[in-house]
C-alpha cells in the first residue's frame, strides 16, 4: 500500500487548516453560501435532506486496518454509528454537522485519510479494480497509476473549476470490475507490442441524463506519457466543455458533439504542445510509487489447503460462501474474499461501526492489513490464505457480514435516494430491500445466478442503473414515487446501456415485477446463460410481456 510521507501528511494538515478557515469565514458571514459551496464540496461536504453528508475519499478503494478503525470511530463519534460505501469506492457519513467537519478532517488526516475532491467540478477519486494486486488477470497494478493520478490531480490549479465533475477509472485486467467504459476517462492497462506497459484510453463514457459507453480515443498510450495525455484531455475539456447548462456540461457531451475522431485529434494536437519532460512523471517517482504497491510478504504455500478442504467439506454454509464470495488469487494458497454489505433487508452498502471494526481486525490479521471497497458497495479482503478462510468466514458470519450473495439478485446497488439525498426524486433503499427479500432464499438466488440489479433515486444515476442487468430509476410522477425499469445494461468489459422496459411502476409493483422478470428468464434460459445473456439473445419483448401483459 502507498505510505504517506512527510510531504503527503503536511499536505493533509494544510488542507484541513484551509477548510477550518473557510468554515470560520462562512459562519462569520464573510463568505456567501454561493461562494462557500464549491469549497465545502471540494472537501466532500454536501448539504443533504436531513444533515450534511461527508464523503471521505478511499483512493482506489484501498484501506488499511488503522484507517478502517478511524472510519468506525468517526461513525460512532460524529454520526449515527454507520457509514455507507459508494459506487466510487468512497465512504459516506449521512449525519454530519458543519461545525464538526474541520475536526473530522483533522482526525482523518491523522491516519492519512481525507475528503479532498470527493465532490465539486474537479477531478474526483480515481477508482480502480478492487482486486488489484491480487488477481492473476492484470497486466499491471492499476493502483500504481491511480496513485499517480491522485497526486497529480490534487489541488491541480488549472483544473479545479471544470465545467463539471470529472471521474477516472482504471482496470489492469480485461475483466472490468471498475466500470471504466462509463467514466469520463477510462483506462485499460495493456501490454504494447514491445512488451511495455500502456493504456487504452476511453474518453466520454458516462451515465446520468445522457448515458454513453465511451469511445476509445487512443488505442495505445505508452504508460510513461499518462499524465501529459490526461492533461491534454482535461485542457481541451476545460476550454471547450459547455458551461451554459449543467445537464450538458460533462465531457461526454463534448466528445459526442465533436465526434470521437475530432475530439481525439484535438487532444493529440494539444498533447503535441506539452513538454513530456515538464508534464510526465519522472521515472524515479514512478518507481517509488510502484515499489509501495509491490507485495513482497506472501508466504509460499501449496495451492491446496488441507485444512480448508476439510472445513469446506463439513460446512454447506462455507461451501456456499466460497461458491459466491471467494475468488481465485494469483498467489498459490491465497484467495480473494468479497464481504457482502447486502444482508437481506438491510440498507445496501451500509456497515455499522462495529462491523467496520470487525473487518479492520480481519484485514489486519488475515489479509496483510489490506481492505478494499468495490463500486458495487461491498468490501474485499484481497489476500486471505486458504488456511484461514474458515476462520474468516466464521468471524464475518458472527458480524452479519457473510451473506453469500455476491453478484446475485440480492447484491443490489442502491443509491441513498430520497431517504437522504437532496437531489433524489424517489426512494431507492426500500425498493432494494423489497427486492432482496424476494431472493432471501439462497438456493433460489443461486439458481437464478448472476443478476446485477441497480437502483438510482434520480437521473443522476449514482446507483448506476443504466449499466444494470435490471436497472431501476426512481421518478416523481404526479407526486408519487414511480419506478422505470430497464434491461440489458452492463458496466463490465461488455459495457452496454440498458433499454427501458415500459411505463413506470408504482413502488409496490416493483418487487413483483422483478419476480416476473426472473421467472420468465428461468423459463426461457438455455445452458449456462446469465439473465443478461438471455436478454441479449431474446430481446425486450418476452420480458416486457412478463411484466405488463397482466391487467393492472
Amino acid at each position, binding site marked *: 500500500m502507498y505510505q504517506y*510521507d512527510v*510531504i*503527503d501528511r*503536511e*499536505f493533509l494538515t*494544510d*488542507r484541513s*487548516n*484551509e477548510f477550518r478557515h*473557510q468554515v470560520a469565514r462562512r459562519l462569520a458571514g*464573510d*463568505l456567501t453560501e454561493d*461562494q462557500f459551496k*464549491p*469549497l465545502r464540496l471540494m472537501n466532500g461536504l454536501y448539504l443533504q435532506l436531513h444533515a450534511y453528508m461527508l464523503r471521505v475519499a478511499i483512493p482506489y478503494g484501498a484501506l488499511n486496518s488503522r484507517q478502517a478503525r478511524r472510519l468506525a470511530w468517526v461513525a460512532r463519534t460524529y454520526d449515527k454509528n454507520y457509514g455507507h460505501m459508494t459506487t466510487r469506492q468512497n465512504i459516506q457519513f449521512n449525519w454530519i454537522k458543519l461545525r464538526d467537519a474541520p475536526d473530522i478532517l483533522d482526525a482523518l488526516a491523522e491516519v492519512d485519510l481525507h475528503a479532498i475532491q470527493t465532490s465539486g*467540478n474537479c477531478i474526483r477519486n480515481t477508482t480502480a479494480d478492487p482486486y488489484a494486486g491480487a488477481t492473476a488477470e492484470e497486466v499491471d497494478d492499476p493502483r500504481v497509476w491511480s496513485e499517480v493520478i491522485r*497526486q*497529480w*490531480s*490534487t*489541488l*491541480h*490549479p*488549472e*483544473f*479545479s*473549476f*471544470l465545467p463539471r465533475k470529472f471521474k477516472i477509472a482504471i482496470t489492469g485486467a480485461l475483466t472490468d470490475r471498475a466500470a471504466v467504459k462509463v467514466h469520463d476517462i477510462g483506462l485499460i492497462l495493456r501490454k504494447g507490442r514491445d512488451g511495455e506497459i500502456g493504456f487504452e484510453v476511453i474518453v466520454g463514457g458516462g451515465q446520468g441524463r445522457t448515458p454513453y459507453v465511451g469511445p476509445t480515443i487512443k488505442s495505445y498510450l505508452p504508460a510513461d506519457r499518462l499524465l501529459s495525455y490526461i492533461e491534454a484531455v482535461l*485542457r481541451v475539456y*476545460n*476550454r471547450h466543455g459547455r*458551461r451554459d447548462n449543467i445537464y450538458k456540461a460533462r465531457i461526454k457531451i463534448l466528445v459526442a458533439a465533436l465526434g470521437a475522431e475530432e475530439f481525439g485529434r484535438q487532444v493529440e494536437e494539444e498533447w503535441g*504542445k506539452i513538454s513530456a519532460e*515538464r*508534464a510526465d*512523471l*519522472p521515472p*524515479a*517517482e514512478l518507481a*517509488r510509487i510502484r515499489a509501495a504497491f509491490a507485495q513482497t510478504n506472501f508466504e509460499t504455500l501449496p495451492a491446496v489447503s488441507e485444512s480448508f478442504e476439510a472445513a469446506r467439506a463439513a460446512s454447506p454454509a462455507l461451501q456456499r460462501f466460497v461458491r459466491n464470495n471467494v475468488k481465485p488469487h494469483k498467489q498459490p494458497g491465497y484467495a480473494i474474499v468479497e464481504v457482502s454489505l447486502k444482508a437481506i433487508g438491510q440498507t445496501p452498502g451500509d456497515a455499522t461501526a462495529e462491523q467496520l471494526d470487525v473487518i479492520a481486525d480481519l484485514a489486519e490479521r488475515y489479509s496483510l492489513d489490506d481492505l478494499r471497497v468495490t463500486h458495487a458497495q461491498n468490501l474485499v479482503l484481497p489476500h486471505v490464505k486458504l488456511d484461514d478462510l474458515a476462520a474468516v468466514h466464521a468471524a464475518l458470519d458472527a458480524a452479519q457480514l457473510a451473506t453469500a450473495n455476491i453478484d446475485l439478485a440480492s447484491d443490489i446497488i442502491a443509491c441513498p435516494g430520497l431517504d437522504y439525498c437532496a437531489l433524489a426524486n424517489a426512494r431507492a433503499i426500500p425498493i432494494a430491500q423489497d427486492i432482496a427479500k424476494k431472493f432471501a432464499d439462497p438456493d433460489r438466488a443461486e439458481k437464478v445466478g448472476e443478476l446485477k440489479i441497480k437502483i438510482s433515486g434520480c437521473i443522476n444515476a449514482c446507483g448506476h442503473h443504466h449499466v444494470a442487468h435490471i436497472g431501476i430509476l426512481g421518478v416523481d410522477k404526479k407526486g408519487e414515487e414511480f419506478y422505470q425499469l430497464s434491461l440489458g445494461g452492463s458496466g463490465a468489459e461488455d459495457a452496454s446501456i440498458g433499454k427501458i422496459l415500459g411505463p413506470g411502476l408504482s413502488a409496490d409493483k416493483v418487487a413483483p415485477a422483478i419476480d416476473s422478470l426472473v421467472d420468465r428468464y428461468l423459463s426461457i434460459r438455455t445452458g449456462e446463460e446469465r439473465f443478461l445473456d438471455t436478454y441479449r439473445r431474446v430481446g425486450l419483448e418476452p420480458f416486457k410481456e412478463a411484466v405488463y401483459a397482466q391487467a393492472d
Partner: protein
Amino acid sequence: MPKLIKLVGAPSDTSFGADWAEDVFIHVADEDPIPEGDVILSLARFQAEGEILLSNSRRVGVRIEPDQEVEALAYDLPRLSVVALAFPKYRDGRAYTSARLLRERLGFTGEIRAVGDVLQEQAGFMVRCGFDAFEPNDDATPEAWVKAAHRFRHVYQRAADNRQVAFEERAV
C-alpha cells in the same frame, strides 16, 4: 478605479508577498472613446485599433473573455503590458488555462491580471497559474491574498509558478 493587488517577488519563491498597487490602466468599454494614458481593451478592439496605440508608445493591455483563445495574442505579447483574464463567475475556470498558456507556452512576461469575480479563496490557484495581479471582488487585502496563496507547503504538479514539486523535494 477598482482596487489592484500585485504580487511582490517571484511565485516560485514561497516567501513572495503582495501589496496594493496604483492601477494606472483604464478599462475601456468597446463603445467608449479611448482616453489618454494606459488602457486595457477588449480583444476585438485591440485587434482593430491596438496597432495605432502601441505605436504611440502607450502601454496597452488586452482583456480576454473565457471563450476567447489567448493564442490570438501570440504575436502581440512582446509589446503588451497587461493581459486581463476575465472571471465572469469565479466558478468559470477557463482563465486558469489561459493564464498557464500565456506564461508557459507563449512566454508572456508581462502582467497577467485576474478581473471579474475574483475571490481570495482562489488566490492559490491563480498564483500557481501565473496570475500576478488581481482586482479583488471581495474584501481581500494584500495580506489576506498572500496568506491564502501560501496555504500549502507542498504542491503535487508543475504549473506556471515553477514551484518545486513534491517529487522534486523527495528526490533531494
